[in-house]
């Protein structure tokens, strides 16, 4: 364990709030949990008797399943509610839904929601830990954890790395969480993509912005691709997927500009042939599937830390009352 072990938070809402020590604490636990992946008996008893509620108001495969697996590996009972199957679709307010979930004796809420700030909002309403699994275009903090965990796994340390994030930054919660996480861990960040999706104003967050993809990729240690959310942007932010691929897609020629040992990350789902050449996605440079696996252990660490902190706080409250 790290010497600077530190976790006093009720909730896990954003990377922007976290210190480097807190990130390192999460990684230290994730390292431990990673060792259980290859065991035949993968379950730990750590959160036995806890009920974790996955409140997913937006479609998700990876994140939802990874959270479910993470919870189950820690022996928690996990229930997943999806958008159209919840009372929110009957007009119940998010406040009332959350209050009722807490009243149903859940121990942790994991929330995915299309509205920025929704996890923060829930955290103010309920006393139990709230874990942000993506809130609008704001943050997707566990994604940044698993991305940085993957970089750390590959390079040992993020200090001094040049990481380029390429694609739709404007609408991306993954980009925002990574902008904070990478910089806190000592990496330099470059954002790249069309001016309509990567406004220069992002430089106010300490990063570089390039609209010329070749310049952005040159000498990068890693490139993080973001899915082009064509269902969202219609034809206003770029003319067509074809032009996007031509101007900004990661192909073999462009990948050759990266440092020789560089790796390619993608949070998924991948649009093959759009933001990334299909063969590149499967090449040895690609760590896309490793990211998915690391998603389990990072989320185990977050669930463990938040649920344990909550249990400790409860114990302290009880003993203070005695």
């Amino acid at each position, binding site marked *: 364990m790290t010497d600077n072990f530190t976790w006093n938070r009720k909730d896990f809402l954003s990377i922007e709030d976290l210190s480097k020590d807190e990130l390192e604490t999460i990684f230290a636990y994730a390292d431990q949990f990673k060792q259980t992946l290859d065991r035949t008996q993968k379950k730990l008893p750590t959160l036995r008797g806890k009920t974790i509620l996955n409140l997913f108001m937006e479609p998700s495969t990876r994140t939802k399943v990874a959270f479910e697996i993470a919870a189950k590996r820690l022996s928690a009972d996990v229930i997943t509610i999806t958008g159209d199957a919840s009372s929110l679709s009957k007009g119940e307010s998010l*406040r009332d839904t959350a209050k009722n979930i807490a009243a149903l004796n859940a121990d942790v809420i994991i929330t995915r929601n299309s509205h*920025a700030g929704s996890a923060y909002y829930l955290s103010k309403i309920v006393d139990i830990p709230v874990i942000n699994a993506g809130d609008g*275009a704001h943050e997707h903090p566990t994604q940044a954890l698993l991305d940085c965990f993957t970089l750390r796994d590959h390079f040992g340390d993020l200090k001094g790395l040049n990481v380029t994030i390429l694609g739709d930054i404007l609408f991306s919660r993954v980009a925002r969480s990574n902008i904070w996480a990478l910089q806190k861990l000592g990496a330099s960040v470059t954002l790249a993509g069309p001016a309509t999706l990567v406004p220069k104003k992002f430089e106010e967050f300490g990063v570089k912005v390039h609209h010329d993809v070749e310049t952005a990729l040159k000498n990068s240690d890693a490139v993080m691709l973001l899915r082009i959310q064509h269902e969202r942007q219609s034809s206003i932010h770029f003319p067509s997927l074809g032009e996007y691929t031509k101007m900004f897609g990661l192909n073999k020629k462009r990948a050759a500009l990266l440092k020789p040992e560089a790796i390619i990350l993608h949070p998924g789902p991948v649009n093959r042939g759009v933001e990334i050449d299909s063969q590149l996605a499967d090449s040895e440079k690609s760590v896309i599937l490793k990211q998915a696996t690391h998603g389990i252990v990072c989320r185990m660490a977050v669930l463990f830390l938040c649920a344990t902190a909550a249990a400790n706080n409860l114990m302290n409250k009880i003993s203070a009352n005695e």
Partner: protein
Amino acid sequence: MNNILWIKSGKVIDPINNRNDIGDVFVIDDKIVSDLTSQQKKEAKILDANGLVVSPGLVDIHVHLRDPGQTHKESIKTGTYSAAAGGFTTIVCMPNTSPPADNAGTIQLIKNSISSRAIVNVYPTGCMTIGQKGEKLAPIGSLKRAGVVAVTDDGLCVQNNELMRRVVEYANMFDLVVMDHCQDADLTDGSVMNEGHWSLRLGLKGWPNSAEDIIVSRNVILSKYSGAHIHLQHISSAHSIEIIREAKKNNIRITAEVTPHHISLTDEKTKDYNTNFKMNPPLRTEEDRKAIVNGLLEGVIDCISTDHAPHSDYEKDTVFDQAMFGITGLETALAVSLETLYHNKLASLPDVISWMTYKPSKILGLESGTLNIGSDADIVLFNPDEEWLVQADNFQSKSNNSPWIGDRLRGKVNRTIVKGKTVWDGKKIIS
């Protein structure tokens, strides 16, 4: 027996008459008089105004009373209670009610409610397009006959330039001011806050200044060619100030207002997703804030209006994207304006009072906002230095969606007098 008031030894500030001295104000029945006879002085009720400012009752030409149809937020009764508590004696209510006030019948209904329930003077406005839909001209002539003092689609902005041209030409025929909410709808589709550092950081959809600047420019151009008076509501963007300055230099009939919140707050306040900082137009940057304050100081902006926009708790207590736009303002406007302009030593007391009395009145041709001899005795007494704590439970408004809750502000209304009668005594409504 007459109602005789002797408001004694106050700091009397009546900007239109250049009055700023320690003195008395006299009222007989509902009118201001120049003096009292010694007999009348014996009979008069004396209000000791020592240490207080005595000024014309405040005038707000941009208020949402939500009546008819949305009285869970506010009503003509509670909205005028709120006005009285804030020192306002005359308010102009917006027509985005339910149904919208786009016909003479609805205006008559509103006027009936005003005469039975309002405790301050209320003037209605009418829609400029049917149902505020921006498609067809509202019956502006009939609205005028029914008693509106202006037409506006406030909350919405007519996007069709041809229609807007006809609105201003048609309204001008009746000497009606067109009050416009300047917002390009395409540029702000789905937007919930100012576009900039904070929208990027919070992941909320941004609202560019250009959305306001473009419509401000359009309105200047339409006013120039039609000669019609267009009043620009709640200006928030620095570049809009430049456009208005230029228009005024060229004697184009443009007037403009700013709100207490846009002169005092910036978009950084949204950083905790507090929906009491969500309004339309949004809070902008510090640069914009300074520019609109300067616009006011230089006379580019004519007046301060609150855009008092009450919403109930469940309409505001939700995620930022889904919360209603708007905040209450009547009960904090004077103090916030005094803090921002007077206590910060940017403007004198008479200036601040002028922006909240005769200047807004003049825009709509109302007679309120003066202590002229013979005018209605609409008067406010306030202590500009007295500090008070803004508390959610203490509003007279039916709603408490105020961004200043928890703040201490200087400037406390001690008494509000409408037509010679006290309607607010500094602590409670007297109706």
